[in-house]
């Protein structure tokens, strides 16, 4: 666990986001203030529909917010043009999705290489680096396998390798363990801490899986579009069960 982390990777001040118009309007974020420090693993927790996914989408620069300020590594996302934001994501952000989103017709090494291919790296070089990352997540021997041949835990390892291959400074993970059993989820989080966390990288993990709270440096608890509290991570908070943030 990283103990000293002072530089701010992500800063959200008064962030709001509303979907729809008129009577069907839904306010997803109601003035979010949050900081994610470089080197830390921050978990966003809360019940379904509390705005976790919206917030992570805004932080990852794939969704525009309505008001407030979001800075990622000092850069104001609203000031960026659409193409600049796309480039910014490609250079600085790694993604781990709940459903892995591995392209089923590519081998796992090729899947890991995708962010590099997007960046214009030659295929052979990208795949070589992809294989090296697969070695680090412990499935290097299966580099030529299609994702469908792997278990859920192994697929999430591939997704973690993919999120790291271009050496991003921020990794956002959406429910990385919700498709996995307890033991596999635990191993995936251990791997995440082992290979993804570092002094120069921040991790934001959206989850409502209380079993993995122990891996967080800090836990931001959300409800109804607001941050209720930000507490230190570690062992599972005693009030998690009462607050409905445990597994459903």
């Amino acid at each position, binding site marked *: 666990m990283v103990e000293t982390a002072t530089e701010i990777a992500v800063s959200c001040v008064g962030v709001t986001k509303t979907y729809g118009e008129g009577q069907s309007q839904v306010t997803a974020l109601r003035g979010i203030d949050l900081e994610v420090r470089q080197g830390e693993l921050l978990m966003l927790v809360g019940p379904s529909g509390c705005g976790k996914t919206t917030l992570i989408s805004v932080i990852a620069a*794939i969704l525009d917010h309505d008001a407030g300020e979001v800075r990622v590594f000092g850069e104001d996302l609203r000031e960026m043009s659409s193409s600049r934001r*796309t480039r910014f994501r490609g250079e600085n952000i790694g993604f781990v999705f709940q459903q892995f989103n591995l392209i089923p017709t590519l081998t796992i090494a090729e899947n890991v290489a995708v962010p590099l*291919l997007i960046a214009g790296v030659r295929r052979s070089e990208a795949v070589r680096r992809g294989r090296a990352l697969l070695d680090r997540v412990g499935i290097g021997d299966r580099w030529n396998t299609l994702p469908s041949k792997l278990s859920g835990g192994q697929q999430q390892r591939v997704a973690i390798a993919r999120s790291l291959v271009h050496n991003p400074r921020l990794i956002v993970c959406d429910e990385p363990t919700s498709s996995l059993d307890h033991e596999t989820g635990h191993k995936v989080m251990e791997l995440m801490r082992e290979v993804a966390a570092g002094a120069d990288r921040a991790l934001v993990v959206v989850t409502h899986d209380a079993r993995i709270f122990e891996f967080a440096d800090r836990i931001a608890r959300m409800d109804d579009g607001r941050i209720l509290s930000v507490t230190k991570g570690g062992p599972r908070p005693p009030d998690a069960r009462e607050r409905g943030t445990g597994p459903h």
Partner: protein
Amino acid sequence: MKFVAIKMLVGDRARYLGILMGLTFASLLITQQAAIFEGLMHRTFGFITDTGGPDIWVMDKKVLMIEDIKPLQETMLYRVRGVEGVDWAMPLYKGLLKARLENGGFQTCHVIGLDDATLVGGPGTMIEGRLEDLRRADSVILDIVGAEGKLARAATEKGGKAVPIKVGDTLELNDHRAIVVGICRTTRTFQSQPVIYTTYSRATQFAPQERKPLSFVLVKAKDGVDRLELCRKIEAATGLAAYTQKGFQDLTYSYFMKYTGIPINFGIAVLLGFIVGTAIAGQTFFNFTVDNIKYFAALKAMGARDSQLLGMILLQAMIVGAIGWGIGVGAASLFGLLLHDTELSFLLTWQLLTISGFAILVICTLSALISIRTVMRAEPAIVFKG
């Protein structure tokens, strides 16, 4: 990203084959129907192509096509010969006469009368006999299709094959005896009637008595004389119409295009191929894109630019287009090859390949455009909606 696009496409076998099938079908139908149409249209002026030697055809001004005979006075031949720049000019008779069959029936035949002295305008390929044999009394030369088909004698046994007319056999043409001295090969005509070659004087004897027996004057230009210029001179001097070989072919072609329903009928078939191909390929390609939308969205989230995604979809569309077109054209060519010696008219030209290629390109572009719109509108944020 090209590599990712290709693997996404070919890895999804069912959809890949579905798209290919749609495009192959469209390509096959468009190419095959267009080739049959082109073959049929070439038959309309097959006789002009077969008539080797002349540079220019001279005829009545009102003639609309090769079969539209408006007889001329024989004196016109001499007037044409008098035009400066004409190397030689020969008469040609062309008419429809009835041949009496052995079973008592009649068969209408194209009778071609060639200049008695030079036999200019005779068939290009003699299978049996010689063209010069036409100088013998009552002689005619038959085309092989007519000899083996409509003019063939009835089978000697019940259910047996008809006996082809051969050299030495006799025919009855308009109550005149005609002796077959040769068998030739000609381009199949549009009407598929037997073609009978004989001399000009004998043809006019076979034909019912007419005041104006001359159908066309065949003209050879002197070396170095511009053919179009000579046409204008002949027209000015005689008041007749004069066309180059190509010009007369075009006139005939245009007539059939303009005054018959053939282009519409074939056009409908080609259009159907285009529409069905677009529907199948477009729908399957769109479904393929929709099924992969979460991957496209993930690529967007990971920093793929719109231009990269656009390039991926276009590449996928062009790959299936090229392969589908190739298979379709190949199948159409095979179809033409296998039926080469039949009644089927089939002419596959490079122009048709270009047209069918363009049609497939349009289908692929339309399919890709629908898919591109879907991908461009996809929010990368959907990747977080598990």
